[in-house]
C-alpha cells in the first residue's frame, strides 16, 4: 500500500480532530464554560461537553472509516475487477 494513502489518513485524523477540537476539549474537560468559575459555569461546561464530545467523536470515526474504506477499495478494486472479468468470461 502506498505510504501516501497512510499519510493522507493520518492527516485526515489530525485535521478532523483539530477542527472538532476533540483532544482540546478532552484535555480541558473539567474547565468551566468560558472560565466562569461559578457552579453554573462548571455545570454548563460539563453538560455541553458531555453532549458535544460523543457527536464529535462519531464524526471523527466516520471520517476515518470512510477513508479506510476508500483505501481498501483502492487496494481491492483492481484484483476484484480482474476476478470479475475472468469469472464472467469463464462462467
Amino acid at each position, binding site marked *: 500500500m*502506498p505510504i*501516501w494513502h497512510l*499519510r*493522507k489518513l*493520518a*492527516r*485526515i485524523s*489530525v*485535521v478532523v480532530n*483539530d*477542527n*472538532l*477540537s*476533540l483532544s*482540546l*476539549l478532552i484535555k*480541558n474537560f473539567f*474547565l468551566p*464554560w*468560558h*472560565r*466562569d468559575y461559578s457552579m453554573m459555569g462548571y455545570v454548563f*461546561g460539563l453538560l*455541553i461537553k458531555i453532549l*458535544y464530545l460523543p457527536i464529535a467523536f462519531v464524526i471523527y470515526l466516520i471520517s476515518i472509516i470512510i477513508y479506510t474504506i476508500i483505501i481498501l477499495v*483502492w487496494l481491492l*478494486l*483492481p484484483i476484484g*475487477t*480482474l476476478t*470479475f*472479468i475472468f469469472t*464472467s*468470461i469463464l*462462467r
Partner: protein
Amino acid sequence: MALDFDMQEKTICGYHKRNTNKFGILENKFPIFQDENESIFLLTRDHFFSISTPQITSVIKNYLRYKRFGDIKRIVANILVLPGVFIALAFIFKYTGFLDQFQPIIELLESKLVNVLFGISIFNVIILWHDFYEEKSHPIQLPKTKKIQQKEIDEIKATGFKFGRYGHLDTVSFSSEQTLELLCDFTKDNQFQTYDLFKYLLKEDYDIQQIIRRSGIEMSVSEMEEKFKIGETVIPDYPITALRSILTYAIEEAILTESRQLEPQHIFLAIIRLYPQTLKYIQTKGISIDILREIALYNNSLIAKAQRTKHLDPNIPYFNKGGIARRWIYGYTFILGHFSKDLTEEVANNRDIYGIGHDDEIENLVSVLGKLSNKNALLIGEAGVGKSSLILGVAQRINTGNVPIQLKDKRIVQLDINGLIAHSLKMGNIEELIMKAMQELENSGNAILYIDEMQELIPAKAEESSHSLAGILLPYILNSKFPIIGTVNYSDYKKYFYSNESLRQSFTNIEVKEVSTTDTLKILETKISTLEKNFNCYITFPTLVASVELAYRYIKERKLPSSAVQTIEATCSWAQSNSIQKITAEHVSKAISIQKNINITDIDQEESNKLRKLEENIRKRIIGQDEAVIAITESLRRARTDIRNPEKPIGVFLFMGPTGVGKTYLAKVVGEEFFGNKSDIIRVDMSEYQDIDSVDKFLGTTETGNVFGQTNITLVDRVKSNPYTVVLFDEIEKANPKILNLFLQIFDEGRLTSAAGETVDFTNTIIVCTSNIGSGILLQALEQDEALWGEAKDRAMIELRQSLSPELLNRFDGVIVFSPLDITQLKSVAELLLTELKKRMIDKGLNIRWTDQIPMLIANKANEPGMGARPLKRYIQDRIEGQIAKEIIEGNLKSGGEIDIKENWII
C-alpha cells in the same frame, strides 16, 4: 540607493570537464556547453540539479509519443467507462422494476458480454483513478531555497564540491508538459532552434506577455531585429547537447522566481539573460533581468494567494488551530470588547501577508510572548517602520498555528484608548470600567493586550495629552498576568521609558528597524491589486521600484516602508486626477516633485538648457567670484543628473574672504536657482553656539524655549520641515569645538541625530559655511597693495588650517577664498542693485531710469577698500531711494510716473 534584488545568491552554476576531471563555479558567465565531455549543474543550498544528454535525447525522441499515448489512453478509458455507467443505471432500473416490461434488456443484463463489459469499464475507472492519484500524490514542485552563505561558497572554492551534502534532482523531471512539448517542437535534426523558440515565446502567451506588460515596456521581434540586430547570429541554433546548459539556466530562473516547475517563461528569461544584446535591448527600455524576474515572482505569489490552502494534502504542513470549540475554554471579554479590537480575527480572512521584512523581530516577539515570566514586549521604532504590521504578522502566525504551544489559540486584542475614554463617559465610573476590563483580560486566558503608542499611558505624557487614564491603567499593566505588547518611538522611549526603572524592567525591548528596500518592494507588491482597484489604473513594476528608491532618497522624514507606500498612493491619486491609466516610474518622479516642490523628473530640453546656462545665470548675479560660482554650479549639475553620492549633502563649501564680496548672497542665489524661489535658505549664526551648553541647543533639545515659554525653532526643526534648501553656517570658527565635531557627521554622512534621538537628513541640502579666519590678513593686503592678494590668500589658508581640524577641512568639497571687488566689478554690482530697485519700483507702478555714468559714479563714491559691495547698498539706499521717497512725498512722482536718477543725487 539602487535596489538589491539579491536573487543570484540563492543558486550557483557549476561545471565539470570530464577530460581533466575539473570542477568549477561559473561566476557571472553563461557558457553553452556543447561538448559531450563538459557538463553543467546547478547548486542550491540543499540540492543540486543535473541533466544529461541521454535524458535530453530521450525526451526529444519519446516525449511526444508518450504524451500521445497518454492522451489516447485517457480518451479510450473515458469511452470505455461509459458502457459501465449505462449498465450500472440499467441494473438500478432493473431492481427498481422499471425494466420489467423490457424483457430483452433484462436478459441482456444477465449475459456474459455485459458482465465482461462492466468489468472492463471498472478497470478503466481504475486507470483514470490512478492517473488522478499520481497527479495528486506526486505533484511537481520545485523546492524553495534560501540564500547560500558566502562562507559556503568560499568553502566550495577552496575544497571543491561535496555532492554528498546535497540532494540530487533531475532538471527534466521538473519541466512542465508545455516546456517539454516546446523543446520537442523546436528541435529539428538534432538542432535546437533557440531563436525560433524565442520569437515563438514572444508571440504566444505562456504568461510572458503578462510579465512584459507589467514591466511597462513593449517588446517586438521587428524592433529587435532592425534596431538591435538580434537574430539567428546572436541567438544561434545549437546541437541537442547544448540544451543541458539552456535548461540549467532556465531551471535557475524557475528556482529564483519560486515557481512550481520549469515553464516556458523561464526559458524566455534564460535566453534574455544569456546574450548581451538581449540584455542591452531590455536595458534601453529601462528595465533589467532582475525586474523581469521579480515580476515573475510576483505573478507566482498571486497564483499561490488565489489557491485555497489544502489542509488535507499531506505534502503541505498543517498547524493545529484549535477548532470550533477552542473559544469555549477561554473567558469572555464583553466589557473590553467595547473599546478594543481582535486583531487575530481581523486578519483571519485576509490573505495579505503582514510583517514582511520583520522576520527576526517576529521571531523575537513570539519568543518573548511565549515566556513564562516577563512576557511583555515593547516594540521600539520610528513611525512608519511597520510596528503594527509586525503585530498583524504575529496574529497571522497564531491563526495559521505556526507558533509555540504557549501561543496556540491566543488572540491579540488592541486597546483603543480613545474608545475607552468615550465609553467611560457613557458608563460613568472609569476606574470600575478599567478594573472590570483588566479582570476580563486576566480571566480570559488567551488574550494578549496590544497598546499602540504606549507612551500615552505614561503619567508624564498623559499630563501633556490632558487625559487622566494613565494613572489608573498603568498599575494594572505593570502587574498584569497577561502578555502585553506596546509600541513606542525612539524619542518617546527615551523621554518616558528610559528614566522609569519599573517600566523598563516590565518590558523586553524589541527594536524594530527600518525594512530594506527589497522588502519594501515586496510590501508594495502586496498592495498592487488594492491600488489598481481603488484608483482604476494599471501599475507597472518600474513604478514600484521608483517608489521605493525615490521614497528612500527624498522622503527622509518617514521611514520605509511607510514612505514608499505613501509615495505610491500619492502617485496613484495624482494619476487618477490626471486621467492617467497606466502608471510608470516617471509619474512617481512627477508626484514626488509636486509633493516636495523639488525637481526630480528626467531632465527635459528646457531644463537641460537651464542647467547648461546655470553658471552663466549665477555669474550675472554674483560679480567677480568665478571660482566659487564654478564650484557650486558643478555640484548642482551633479545633483540634478543624479551622479552625486546620495548619502552625502549635495555640496559642502567653505567661503572665506573679506566682508561684502557676496558670500551670503551666493548662498541665496543658489537657493533661488536650484531649489526655487519658495525655498528660503536656513541661516545659522554660529556665534550663538560658542559655549558648551549650546550643543544641546544646536541638537534641538526640547527644553529650549524663549522668555515667553514658547519653544524655539531650532536648526533641526527647520531642516526637518524643509530638507531641500541651502544651509548657511555663518562664522563657523566661532562655534564650540564640540559643535564642529557634529559637523563631521553632517558633512560625511548627511545626517544628524537630534537631542530627541531622531535622525535629521541633510542629504538634500547644500551646506555653505562662511569664516572670517584670515580676514585680517586679507584686509591688510587690500589696504596696502592689491598685488599682495595672492600671498595674503595663502597666508589666510595657513591660518585656516591652524584654526580648524584637518578632519573638518577634509570634508569640505571646496574651500573658496572670495576675491575683493575692483572698481569695474563694483560698477557691475551697482548696476545690479539699481536693476533690483527698478524692479521694486515697477511693482509700485513707477519707473526709474539712469544713464551709463550713474553706476560708475556710485561705485566711485561708495567704494571703501576692504568693505566690498555693502557700502554701495547703503549709498543707493541713502541717496537714491531717499530722493525717490522725497519726490513721492512731495507729490512730484505718482503712480505710472517716471523718474531719472540725477548725478547731483550722488555727488
